[in-house]
């Protein structure tokens, strides 16, 4: 009935464990009750026998011997053993052949003395004896077994037996049912996962809404599937975008070359080849950018992280772009104060800032302004690149970090449209954020860094 698979389930094991724990604790409770009751009962017996012996001492010997005989003959005594011995230890009356060997004659109850029964009556190790010497030198011995303590033990064992077996059976039954239920749910999950693995990416794990562990796990797996589907969608749209960005120039090139072949004038042909080469170079640049983004995104880890001073990065990017800004007669400046450190891959960070500055220079109008500022906030340093170009409309701000996105408002400026995606990828890899700030005029893009360790004192 219970398959090994079921036994291996967590609920079944829990039920088994519960049954074992319950049995243990019940046995402990019953044992304690038995021990306490038996103790009380035995003490009461001790006391009774000691009092009996004390009374017997007061009675004259012939009368006592007579009483013993009557008691034994009528079996009316609480005590099983009654006997009177003379000072030599010879029996005068009673049902004991002799005084038990190890029994001290002190009027106090003693246990476990082996009696020598005269008539083969019940004797064993569970007998209490009291021996008392009388004033005339005779010895009175009285004894009793522990039959009601044994009866109590039997009752306790019976109660245990009748109470425990149903409890254990019930626990195992509940465990089996719960295990079956879990196993069924896991089977359903397994089937759903199988369907998803076979390509049905819209399949989701069933959630019962009970908020139990399996439910929570299913919710998390479903969220993971959502995010995988999103990523795949992104890859597909990237694929579409690549197709667009590569197909368009390739189609133009194809058309041009065909025209060249048809018309055939030497100068026209020369011009067509020149244009085609330029288109090809653009597609090469696009492929290179895409591969670079893929490399950064798939890298998922930084190769050479060092303590990097952001001011130096800004100076380096400034030196790289100053001539380009001068060509456009831009007011180009960097603003930074005290040295600010972050943990970063220096080359990648330069690439990111260079990209932002490249964009700013591209979009700023001739004679316009580009500023690169380093702001040291308590939450971490911020690198802000501002320009007074057309800016990014607020509705489009979340889109610009997507690959290939080009603002509708942007003037016709050449670019692969991959710059901000690349900066986002680099920032994310470092645990930094790319923020597009709200500004009235132009654009302001920030890399919000997490602070690095302070420089070690030299």
């Amino acid at each position, binding site marked *: 009935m219970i398959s090994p698979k079921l036994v291996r389930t967590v609920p079944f094991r829990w039920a088994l464990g519960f049954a074992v724990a319950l049995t243990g604790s019940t046995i402990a409770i019953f044992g304690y009750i038995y021990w306490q009751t038996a103790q009380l009962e035995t003490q009461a017996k001790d006391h009774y026998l000691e009092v009996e012996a004390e009374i017997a001492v007061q009675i004259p010997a012939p009368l006592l011997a007579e009483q013993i005989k009557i008691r034994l003959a009528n079996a009316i005594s609480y005590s099983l053993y009654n006997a009177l011995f003379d000072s030599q230890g010879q029996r005068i009356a009673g049902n004991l052949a002799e005084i038990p060997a190890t029994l001290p004659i002190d009027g106090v109850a003693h246990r476990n003395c082996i009696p020598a029964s005269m008539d083969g009556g019940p004797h064993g190790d569970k007998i209490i004896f009291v021996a008392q010497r009388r004033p005339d030198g005779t010895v009175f011995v009285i004894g009793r077994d522990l039959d009601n303590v044994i009866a109590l033990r039997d009752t306790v064992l019976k109660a245990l037996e009748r109470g425990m077996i149903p409890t254990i059976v019930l626990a195992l039954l509940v465990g089996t049912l719960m295990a079956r239920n879990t196993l069924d749910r896991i089977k359903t999950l397994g089937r759903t996962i199988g369907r998803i693995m076979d390509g049905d990416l819209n399949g989701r794990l069933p959630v019962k809404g009970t908020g139990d562990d399996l439910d929570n796990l299913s919710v998390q797996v479903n969220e993971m599937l959502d995010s995988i589907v999103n990523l795949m969608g992104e890859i597909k749209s990237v694929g579409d975008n690549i197709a667009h960005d590569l197909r368009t120039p390739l189609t133009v090139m194809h058309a041009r070359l065909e025209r060249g072949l048809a018309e055939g004038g030497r100068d026209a042909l020369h011009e067509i080849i020149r244009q085609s*080469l330029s288109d090809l*170079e653009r*597609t*090469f*640049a696009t*492929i*290179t*950018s895409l*591969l*670079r983004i893929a*490399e950064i995104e798939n*890298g998922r880890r930084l*190769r050479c992280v060092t303590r990097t001073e952001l001011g130096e990065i800004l100076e380096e990017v400034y*030196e*790289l*772009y100053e*001539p*380009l800004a001068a*060509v456009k007669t831009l007011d180009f400046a960097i603003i930074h104060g005290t040295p600010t450190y972050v943990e970063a891959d220096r*080359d990648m960070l*330069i*690439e990111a800032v*260079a*990209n932002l500055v*490249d964009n700013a220079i*591209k979009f700023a109008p001739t004679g316009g302004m580009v500023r690169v500022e380093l702001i040291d906030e308590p939450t971490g340093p911020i690198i802000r690149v501002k320009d007074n170009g057309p800016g990014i409309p607020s509705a489009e701000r979340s889109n610009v970090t997507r690959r290939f996105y080009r603002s509708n408002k942007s003037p016709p400026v050449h670019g692969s449209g991959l*710059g901000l995606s690349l900066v986002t990828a680099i920032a994310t890899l470092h645990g930094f954020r790319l923020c597009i700030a709200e500004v009235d005029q132009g654009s302001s893009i920030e890399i919000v860094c997490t602070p690095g360790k302070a420089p070690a004192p030299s």
Partner: protein
Amino acid sequence: MPSFPDSYARPTILVVEDDQDMAEEILAVLSSEGYAATHAVSGDAGLAAIRAAPPNLLVTDRMLPGLDGLALIECLRAEGIQVPVLVLSALSSVDERIKGLKAGGDDYLTKPFAMGELCARIEALLRRPVENRETMLVIGPLKMDLIERTVHRGAREVELLPREFKLLEYMMRRPGQVVTRSMLFEDVWHYRFPPRTNLVDVHMGRLRHKIDFPEEPPMIQSVPRVGFVLNDLS
């Protein structure tokens, strides 16, 4: 473009490339540049050819059937054959590049590339500048004092910014040799990412403005679609 006098043996280049079209294009360009180029379709064939007659330079694809490009280079280095190697690869990541150079490659060019870039890098490998200890570089009328950090064209002193000085030093160590934008970006700026827009051109434009005055014969020349060359005016 390099020119080789008849008396001077043409440099031999072995191209190991499994794609027939690609190989044909490379061979055609190399032949037109005056090199004696031969072709092998696999790493094993390439290794056999090099053992038979080591060329002046090896151009090998990174991914080849059988013995791949990197294994080929490792074999050569293990056998003590120190022919300079240019690795061509569709794998562009920094890791791959480092692997290529660690295996013993001397330069690494990622596909897609322009033939001009390929030729410039081949020329750079064949004419590797000797890292000599001289403190004065002289190319035609141009004199660079590496100790004083001064540059003169004839009697005229040329004031250069530190980066312009490095740029000119790089060019002066490679006179008459085409240097491409990406070679400059990698070797002068030490950046591994591709230069954007016309960044290198603008820097070179500034340098040229300082080196070549309008009335002087130009020493720095643009090579359309490829890069720049410093002529010694001889």
